[in-house]
């Protein structure tokens, strides 16, 4: 994947090339406001570049990139929560909330993405990390390494995620077909 980079600059350049789009999506999942999101993304890139000064290869570059990005984003959520008062919920609560929501379902990709972002942005940080990594196509072991929970725990959370998604998007999916 990466061509054996050796310096901080090389590591950053390669990682930024590979994960630029994923980092933008991650920032989108943590911040709805476009202007603030750009600042968050910039903070992630700066932290990533600075972090590579101490990268010792004890985990993969991908795990490192996601950890730094998620951790910067979590700090952002914590500081933003002092300003905004919206309560974050866990997957468990989201399941029960879903039951009471009006079944207005997505009819197009844009609407589906908006609904998806709305769901993700309401999640507590760790559940949000699992959901994002799941959407990025990472396997349970990699997700566990990034988030710091067991693969079994990841599997349980993904099972819940799938159930929530099925409930929220099933009808929209049928309409799209």
């Amino acid at each position, binding site marked *: 994947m990466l061509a054996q980079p050796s310096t901080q600059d090389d590591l950053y350049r390669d990682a930024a090339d590979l994960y630029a789009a994923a980092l933008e999506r991650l920032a989108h999942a943590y911040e709805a406001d476009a202007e603030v999101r750009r600042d968050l993304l910039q903070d992630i890139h700066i932290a990533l570049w600075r*972090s590579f000064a101490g990268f010792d290869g004890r985990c993969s570059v991908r795990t490192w990139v996601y*950890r*730094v990005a998620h*951790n910067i984003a979590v700090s952002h959520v914590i500081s933003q929560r002092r300003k905004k008062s919206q309560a974050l919920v866990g997957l468990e609560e989201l399941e029960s909330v879903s039951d009471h929501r009006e079944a207005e379902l997505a009819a197009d990709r844009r609407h589906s993405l908006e609904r998806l972002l709305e769901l993700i942005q309401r999640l507590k940080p760790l559940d949000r*990390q699992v959901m994002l990594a799941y959407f990025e196509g990472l396997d349970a072991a990699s997700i566990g390494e*990034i988030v710091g929970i067991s693969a079994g725990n990841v599997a349980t959370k993904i099972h819940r995620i799938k159930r929530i998604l*099925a409930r929220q998007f099933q009808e929209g*999916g049928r309409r799209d077909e």
Partner: protein
Amino acid sequence: MTNESPPNDRLKNIWQNQPTEGIHLSIDEIRRRAGKLQTKVYWRNAREYAAALIVLGFFGLGFWHATDALVRFAEGLIIAGTLYVMWQLHGRGAAKSVPTEMGVASGLEYYRRELERQRDLLRSVWSWYLGPMVPGLVVLMVARARIAPGHLGRVALSSAVIALVFVSVWWLNHWAARKLQSRIDELNALEAQR
């Protein structure tokens, strides 16, 4: 995770192919912005120290011109308290995580560490932020009451207002720390399942 149902495949596809701005920063740009960020932190700290210097200047003048020994002693205690708070602010500001630690720590570890750092800061607000100012303020009120016994009511009222502010700040911080603790407990329970 490999055998996805069609709706989940569709959602993953929507997620991964969402429009992005393609923001790209060159190394020089990153260096420049990182430097700017450092400057911003430097000026924020400078503002805090400037505010403390104003307090020090105000009470320093009082200390210099005070004719009453007890007032001078109170002003000295307030100056010492302010210096102690400045020293604590400096130390606690430097304790923030550096980017390399963010790559080493998992999401759970980092999140818990940040919450614990905030909880400890809130819990200890009395010992490092409010407490050091109390002796000076108490002695100052006693000195004023002694100097002007005819204005005891005014001294009592200002003492009560200061006490109310201090207790409110302490209570709000304590309440916020308790809320953080319940979130830390949740994370500990999650880690225990590993």
